[in-house]
């Protein structure tokens, strides 16, 4: 089983074991687990064969958005990533088109199946259950009036809900997952930003819990999980599928806190099973504690890609390399340096040109790019890898907001749905948006304070200048070394220091921290730093052989007292061998501190332990074809770059016509992934995007069983009898 049983941060929960079958083979799943994670835990990565050409399909978004992970569960085609396994479930690969399910059972949405709705009546209610008769009742669609409807229970939505709850505004917050927190629940690392505004220094998973708990104090806030917004209608009603039922919500204010979705790339082999998004990876590894890979490669040096590499290492997965097309990684330097210290090779000015393999990923070929991002012949490097994460940026999920505005609703947007930034900024923007909502509802009259907007701008800031390492200006016997040299919006070290000796000016959170004053060696700054950029040097016992305390989050038991380790500097260069004199386990912070005895020459520079030797490419050279005709653009309908290019060259400039003639964008996901790729192809063909007409936006946002819209309910014969027994 590919399960993660030992993780430095995450504690595997005891869960009920279930049995289900896949392609006739009996497999184990854990209670509450979705099909995709259960299959990955059993090493199964091919979920279906595409209807167009039979090519194998694996997961892609693992977020209920893309429909690539379709399987047949108890006779119904479902998305494996949002459908929970039930005891005795029969799962099969979808091969071509699904067969018509018989209606001896009721309509079941994936949410329903996922939310335990299946057990609602005490018996499985999926179709195909022999001997089960079913009387249908067509219900009415309930209309629900609320002051505020928030779509999305991530950091922005939760922060907004809390602000509205404080003033007793009737608020409904919905989220399509079974747990609030959005993507915070996938983040094992500590967060940046300010302690005061957005829980900086706390791990994402813990922030999610805090935000959720906070809502419990506000009775006017109602939470629906497993509730998907499927459409915004022109009559200003919002269609929501909640636990398999359909509701129309009529809000006075509509707040989109819908977050973002990942962009992807077009290259040879880009849909091979094993090629997917960093979000999907984090879902498997950090939410479901499944190890989907043994050897990982990552495209993209933004925060998402860098963090994914770190998460992989924490889960015991080797990282063969990470590439970035720009000449530097755009993510925070502290994230980059964390993975460099652990021996991950990082190649800047590189792009991916081929995913190789037959039924799944076996190799990844990358090539260097010129300043126009064109890959250069002869620079190819091929790595062995079973998984390739594409982490090349995010697009706002802005459809609902766009429609709500078009329909004249009192519409607001916050978090990544408005502008892609860190979760810290999302929380702050949720708060600001809530105040705008309060004003629009007449609950509050004052304007949002100006400094809030200033703070939001700071939190949204891209990383600034990187400063040279500071020269030590003091001669203290114990002191922190602040390896954090890049300007980022972050202040926990300064907030937490009991001696107030770490300085970040209140007026400029972006400034790099400075140590001035006394240190008592309490480790608080070391433990809270999200970038693992603080070490404590202690010369009190032996000035010639000081100890250095290093934060360590990779595997308990990996480094033990008495071990000899190689120290590295902050960016991963080897320094010298040293002996570990102690390993302290700070359980509350889920962080180990490794204390090594070193020399005064390197004490200030030591920042990490060398754990892995960087992997080398298997081979170099071999040629490639950039933007090949075979690359898949529309995954749902499997429309290739060649087909799109042909239509563009034939003069198609209206994306609606492009869709009509090629079917690109006509699939289950509704052009969520291909739209931005197609824009890129137009650009590469030299077409000004101003000449191109955008796709029309239409409901539904996700596929919903037809029966759900009339709230079909189903009763077994027994229940049917029981319902008459009172007469």
């Amino acid at each position: 089983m590919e399960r993660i049983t030992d993780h430095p941060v995450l504690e595997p929960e005891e869960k009920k074991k279930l049995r289900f079958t896949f392609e006739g083979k009996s497999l184990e799943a854990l209670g509450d687990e979705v099909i995709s994670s259960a299959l990955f835990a059993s090493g199964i990565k091919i979920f279906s064969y595409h209807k167009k050409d039979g090519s194998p399909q694996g997961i892609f978004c693992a977020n209920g958005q893309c429909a690539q992970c379709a399987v047949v569960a108890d006779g119904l085609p479902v998305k494996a990533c949002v459908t929970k396994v039930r005891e005795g479930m029969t799962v099969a690969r979808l091969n071509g088109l699904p067969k018509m399910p018989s209606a001896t059972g009721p309509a079941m949405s994936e949410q329903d199946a996922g939310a335990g709705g299946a057990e609602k009546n005490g018996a499985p209610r999926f179709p195909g259950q022999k001997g089960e008769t079913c009387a249908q009742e067509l219900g009415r669609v309930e209309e629900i009036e609320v002051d505020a409807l928030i779509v999305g229970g991530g950091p922005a939505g939760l922060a907004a809900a809390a602000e509205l709850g404080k003033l007793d505004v009737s608020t409904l917050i919905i989220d399509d997952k079974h747990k609030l927190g959005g993507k915070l629940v996938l983040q094992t690392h500590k967060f940046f930003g300010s302690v005061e505004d957005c829980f900086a220094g706390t791990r994402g998973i813990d922030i999610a819990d805090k935000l959720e708990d906070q809502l419990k104090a506000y009775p006017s806030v109602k939470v629906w999980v497993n509730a998907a917004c499927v459409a915004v209608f022109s009559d200003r009603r919002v269609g929501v599928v909640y636990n398999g039922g359909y509701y129309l919500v009529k809000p006075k204010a509509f707040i989109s806190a819908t977050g973002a979705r990942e962009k992807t790339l077009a290259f040879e082999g880009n849909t091979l099973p094993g090629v997917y998004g960093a979000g999907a990876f984090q879902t498997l590894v950090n939410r479901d504690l499944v190890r989907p890979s043994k050897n990982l490669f990552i495209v993209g040096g933004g925060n998402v890609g860098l963090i994914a590499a770190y998460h992989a290492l924490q889960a015991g997965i080797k990282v063969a390399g990470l590439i970035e097309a720009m000449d530097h990684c755009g993510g925070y330097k502290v994230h980059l340096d964390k993975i460099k210290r652990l021996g991950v090779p990082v190649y800047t000015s590189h792009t991916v040109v081929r995913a190789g393999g037959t039924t799944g990923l076996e190799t990844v070929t990358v090539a260097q790019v010129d300043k126009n991002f064109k890959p250069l012949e002869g620079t190819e490097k091929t790595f062995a890898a079973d998984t390739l994460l594409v982490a090349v940026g995010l697009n706002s999920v802005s459809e609902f907001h766009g429609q709500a505005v078009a329909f004249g609703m009192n519409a607001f947007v916050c978090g990544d749905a408005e502008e892609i930034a860190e979760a810290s900024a999302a929380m702050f923007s949720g708060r600001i948006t809530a105040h705008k909502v309060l004003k629009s509802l007449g609950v509050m009259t004052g304007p949002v304070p100006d400094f809030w907007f200033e703070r939001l701008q700071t939190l949204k800031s891209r990383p600034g200048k990187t400063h040279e390492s500071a020269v030590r200006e003091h001669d203290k016997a114990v002191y922190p070394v602040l390896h954090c040299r890049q300007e980022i919006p972050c202040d926990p070290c300064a907030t937490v220091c009991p001696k107030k000796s770490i300085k970040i000016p209140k007026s400029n959170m972006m400034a790099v921290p400075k140590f001035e004053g006394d240190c008592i060696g309490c480790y608080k700054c070391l433990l809270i730093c999200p970038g693992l950029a603080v070490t404590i040097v202690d010369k009190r016992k032996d000035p010639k052989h000081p100890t250095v305390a290093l934060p360590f989050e990779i595997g308990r038991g990996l480094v033990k007292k008495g071990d000899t380790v190689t120290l590295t500097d902050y960016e991963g260069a080897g320094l010298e061998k040293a002996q570990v004199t102690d390993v302290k386990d700070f359980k509350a912070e889920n962080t180990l501190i490794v204390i090594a005895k070193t020399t005064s020459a390197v004490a200030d520079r030591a920042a990490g332990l060398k754990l892995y030797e960087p992997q080398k490419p298997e081979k170099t050279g071999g040629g490639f074809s950039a933007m090949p005709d075979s690359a898949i653009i529309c995954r749902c309908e499997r429309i290739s770059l060649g087909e799109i290019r042909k239509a563009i060259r034939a003069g198609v400039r209206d994306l609606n016509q492009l869709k009509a003639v090629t079917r690109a964008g006509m699939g289950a996901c509704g052009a969520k992934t291909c739209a931005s790729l197609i824009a890129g192809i137009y650009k590469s063909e030299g077409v000004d995007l101003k000449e191109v007409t955008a796709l029309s936006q239409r409901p539904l946002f996700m596929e919903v069983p037809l029966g759900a819209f009339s709230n079909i309910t189903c009763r077994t014969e027994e229940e049917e009898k029981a319902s008459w027994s009172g007469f």
Partner: protein
Amino acid sequence: MSVKTYDVIVIGAGSVGVPLAMALAGRNLRTLVLETMPSVGQGQNKCAIGGVRATHSDGAKIKACLRSLDIFSTWREKCGEDIGWLKGGYAFPVYTEQDEEVLKELLKVQRGFGLNIDWLDADKMRGLIPGITQKELRGGTYAPDDGSASPLLAINAFYRRALGLGAEFHFMEPVTEICSEAGVVKGVVTSLGRYNASWVVNAAGADAAEVSAMAGVKVPVNPDCHEAGITEPMERFFEPMVVDIRPGDKSKNYYFYQNSEGQIVFCLTPQPPIWGRDRRSTSQFLPEVSKRMTALMPDLANIKVRRTWRGLYPMTPDGFPIVDFPGALKGYVLAVGMCGQGFMLGPGLGETIAAHIAGKPSADDREILAGFTLERNFSSQEKLK
């Protein structure tokens, strides 16, 4: 600057205008199509669900649609392109005595026109529509030669063919004036310039009345709105277009079929009609259509709806199109008021209109136009809208 001169200018690159341009260019007439939208079929064509039937209730429509059926059904063999044609037939299942009477009466008329249509008993209807609700099912009519095609693929195929035959298309170029002298059409002025032509055809769909006003010819065409949707694809499990003519709570009839991709495409007629041009989706449609479709065919409850949309039916008072050469303005041609059937009528009417313009109409061509004249009493009613 010299003004470009054409034989025919067609206003509207939709269900009617595009096949008409193809027919005109096929007769070597210099043809220009002017369209306000950015590409073909972006008005109501793409909202059509794709049904094509000849089983109407009057001769003109039947004849025009038989022509269309011929074009749709032979397109692949003649032109080598797939337009999603499926000969699945049309089925009208019947649950009430009154509907049985109406359809059986109509059957006589339809068979009188030589149409292949028959009454099936309840058992045969069940065979045709697996899983149809059996309670009170009386049978229904079935016309096996009717079918369906993809409006999106078909209009683009017709467009490419028209281009190949020499027709010109200008997109995002609205017509602002129809020019005439002494009661004779001379051409049009657009947002970009002037074009001369001996014939100007109004094939402007939902905008037909406004366009016709520029020619000084009043036409009684008013759009109303209908919503439609499409599901995920499934392996084929039924063939015909199923039309349920019973009234519902907030709707009249509705109809659905499984297209060549395996997706179920469905459409509902709201009751009372919603007049106007609003094409934005409403919250009313899905609950209503879901209730009705799943009551008729419970298996459909589990199929996932993928997308919905709303389109306009350019209605005339009696439900029949207006295809005419009005006497008030020589050279001006009306091909308007398709009442939601532009897709199925378009290719057939295109042939007929082109034959008239070329001066060689057949007896059938003349008969078709005679049924759709502007100068008629609009008080009769189409029986099978």
